[in-house]
């Protein structure tokens, strides 16, 4: 399998802050990979490094077989618009649409026109006066119409209404079907985007905590819910990522998959078990350091 993106032991520090900490993951060519994690997990930093806009403090990032930083042939094959992208003074939409094709050899003006029309991006207003949703729309136009072999979307839905998000999904899937390329997309709207991904990478505090196919990622955690003592009993010995308790009821997200042994113990104890959703998994990893269920059970008994 050829990898479009290969991140090897990348660390990026800003002063005493470690934005990325020995992160490693790969994205196969043609994949749509979700880059997930809490705010400050390192998603934008890793995207900046992949896009050649930043360099790792240590480790190596390769895109399409090359280190992207200052490598012109690779940079023309990457599209990355930051979530807080700055535009030159007094830029309007037509400035963006006029200059982008000069840098993007695969630019498709029809896709750009369809998106501009669908998002209803104002033509006469200066971009610096755009709303958050309108800025996201411009970023999506640049990302999709550039048809770059490696396309990075950093929180593309920020401020977008439901109709605009639906338009984005439709054009993304339609255009990828006709012109396959590798997409890395960071988002907090996990449930809504989950079906797009064939692969997910979850970052927490600069570290890669999950790098797996989407379906395999669902087998990484289980949600056990029911009466609290029974839940604690079934969860015994497993790493607990997250706990929710209301009255005498409890729901815990623990490491592992729903195997026959777990199902049997759950049936005996009268609790429900189900694979954790991707959103649960991301929330679980972001909740803090996992504990072992033994302590909780011990404390109660």
């Amino acid at each position: 399998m050829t990898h479009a993106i290969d991140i090897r032991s990348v660390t990026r520090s800003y002063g005493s802050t470690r934005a990325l900490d020995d992160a490693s993951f790969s994205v196969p060519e043609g994949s749509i990979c979700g880059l997930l994690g809490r705010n400050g997990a390192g998603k934008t930093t890793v995207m900046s490094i992949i896009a050649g806009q930043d360099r790792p403090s240590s480790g190596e990032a390769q895109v399409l077989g090359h280190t992207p930083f200052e490598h012109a042939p690779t940079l023309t094959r990457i599209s990355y618009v930051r979530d807080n992208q700055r535009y030159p003074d007094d830029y309007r939409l037509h400035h963006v649409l006029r200059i982008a094709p000069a840098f993007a050899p695969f630019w498709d003006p029809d896709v750009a026109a369809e998106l501009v029309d669908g998002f209803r991006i104002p033509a006469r207003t200066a971009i610096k006066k755009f709303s958050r949703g309108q800025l996201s729309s411009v970023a999506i136009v640049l990302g999709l119409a550039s048809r770059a072999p490696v396309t990075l979307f950093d929180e593309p839905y920020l401020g977008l209404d439901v109709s605009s998000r639906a338009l984005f999904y439709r054009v993304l899937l339609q255009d990828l079907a006709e012109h396959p390329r590798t997409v890395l997309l960071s988002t907090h709207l996990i449930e809504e985007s989950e079906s797009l991904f064939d692969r997910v990478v979850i970052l927490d505090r600069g570290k890669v905590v999950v790098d797996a196919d989407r379906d395999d990622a669902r087998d990484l955690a289980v949600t056990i819910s029911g009466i609290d003592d029974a839940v604690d009993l079934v969860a015994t010995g497993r790493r607990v990522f997250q706990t929710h308790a209301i009255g005498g009821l409890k729901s815990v997200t623990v490491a592992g998959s729903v195997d026959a042994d777990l199902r049997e113990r759950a049936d005996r104890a009268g609790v429900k078990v189900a694979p954790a959703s991707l959103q649960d998994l991301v929330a679980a990893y972001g909740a803090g350091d996992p504990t072992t269920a033994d302590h909780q059970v011990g404390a109660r008994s």
Partner: protein
Amino acid sequence: MSSIAPTVKLHLNKREITFLVPLYITLMVTVLSVLIALIFWRSGSQPGSDGWVIGSRNNPGIAYSLPGFLVYLGVQSIATTFPFALTLGATRRAFTAGTLAWAAMVSAYLAIVLAILTVLEIATNHWFTGFYIFDIYILGTGNIPRLLAIVFLGSLTSLTLGGVFAAAWVRFGTNGPRTLGIALGLVIAVGALLIVPAWPDLQAAFQLWWLAVTAVVVIAGSSIASWAFLRSATVR
């Protein structure tokens, strides 16, 4: 594929500010110069007289107005354009080279525009009324090759100086231009201290090409420093 040519296009993308605003400023200087000349005329000075010609040719309006705008243009050519250029896929090296090429184009454009206006002014015997707007000392007193060199190098110096301050800001935040300004101030002050005793001799021996060499040194230094700052700048 080099991104130098696309970077030049990126800068030229804002056509009004690149090509028209300098003309608006020149027009404003012209109107103000004519108004001032009219005031002198009404107060008794006679167009064409020696005093009128000498006074008019000392008009520094164009030197006060255009460089300020050009420094701003140089600042924005990097401060807000660099992050977008990176997003579009420019390398830092190509961006610096493309920005210098664009600055040279703008400088050449201004030199040609002012040369044409000067030729017109001289051909019309100073706009048929004896008004001196472009045939002035600071623009070479009607010497067109000298005017071309003065405007080209002066404009390029302003643009690249603005650029290096912006690059220092992109690299180091507000500390960058502040430190650069202090450092430049110190260099100029120390230089002045060193040459003050020899000032009368230097003044006597002064040659115009000294200014040209100084401008070339400033342009080269600013461009190299911009590249050094941008090379390691992180856009966040």
